[in-house]
């Protein structure tokens, strides 16, 4: 059974009031939704709000769900759009109120792994939001370029351009050590 059909059946059961079906959908999609929102907003509480809102919209949509639509793509898109809206509202769009860029360490061995994660997270947060979304979807959530482009509502070529600029931006922010993480660009 295809993922689309399986999810559509689950949502049909959910629309009929099956909480077990709802729970299966939550277990299957929540972590990735939360991950995308977190990478976009840089705040767990806000990411949780966004994830909750996305699922609330899914429950409202459940009785009218079209069998040919893919729930994961739909949810990703809702999360992405909600994040963009929130970023606009808080004026944290690219170029405005950019978080402090951490200084890249000279040697990878000098810093703790946790610190590295923080540095990378901060570097990601300084990227323009669409580049950050592209990097998150493709390199962290392992979506295909086609899948990520569909979620973001852009062409594959536009996504590739965002990825390229995003990687260059990350490399610049992470310094020489970024090469070890990002690979040869």
């Amino acid at each position, binding site marked *: 059974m295809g993922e689309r059909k399986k999810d559509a059946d689950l949502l049909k059961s*959910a*629309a*009929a*009031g099956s*909480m077990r079906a*709802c*729970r299966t959908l*939550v277990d299957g999609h*929540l*972590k990735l939704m*939360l*991950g995308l929102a*977190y*990478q976009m907003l840089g705040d*767990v509480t806000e*990411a*949780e709000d966004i*994830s*909750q809102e996305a*699922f*609330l919209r899914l*429950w*409202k949509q*459940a*009785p009218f769900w079209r069998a040919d639509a893919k729930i994961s793509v739909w949810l990703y898109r809702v999360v992405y759009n909600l994040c963009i809206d929130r970023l606009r509202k808080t004026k944290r769009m690219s170029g405005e109120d950019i978080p402090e860029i951490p200084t890249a360490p000279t040697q990878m061995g000098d810093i703790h*792994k946790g610190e*590295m*994660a923080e540095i*990378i*997270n901060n570097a*990601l947060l300084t990227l323009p939001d669409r580049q950050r979304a592209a990097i998150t979807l493709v*390199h*962290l959530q392992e979506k295909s370029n086609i899948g990520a482009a569909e979620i973001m509502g852009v062409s594959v070529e536009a996504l590739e351009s965002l*990825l*390229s600029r995003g*990687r260059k931006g990350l490399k610049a922010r992470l310094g020489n050590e970024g090469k*070890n*993480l*990002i*690979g*040869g*660009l």
Partner: protein
Amino acid sequence: MARKKKPQEWDMPGFKNHIAMPEPSEDLVEKIMADAQATLGAASWKTILWPFGAVWKPVMVLSASVFLGVWVGFAELAKDEAFIDAEIEAIFWG
């Protein structure tokens, strides 16, 4: 023609390993499930009651029509009986 992939450029080995993704908390899952219960639980009751609603309306209309028909019928009958009574009285008592 398939696009030529440039693996070296697209791969970011090690990058993902350094990123910590948050795990969904039980509290968040409970909130989402509470939303589901509030939204779809109510919807399921509507779904269950819907056939009754669908049947109820035509039954109401039919009942009203039958009641009206019977009421008018009896009224006509009563009118006829009153007329017959009056005729009988006229015959016997002048």
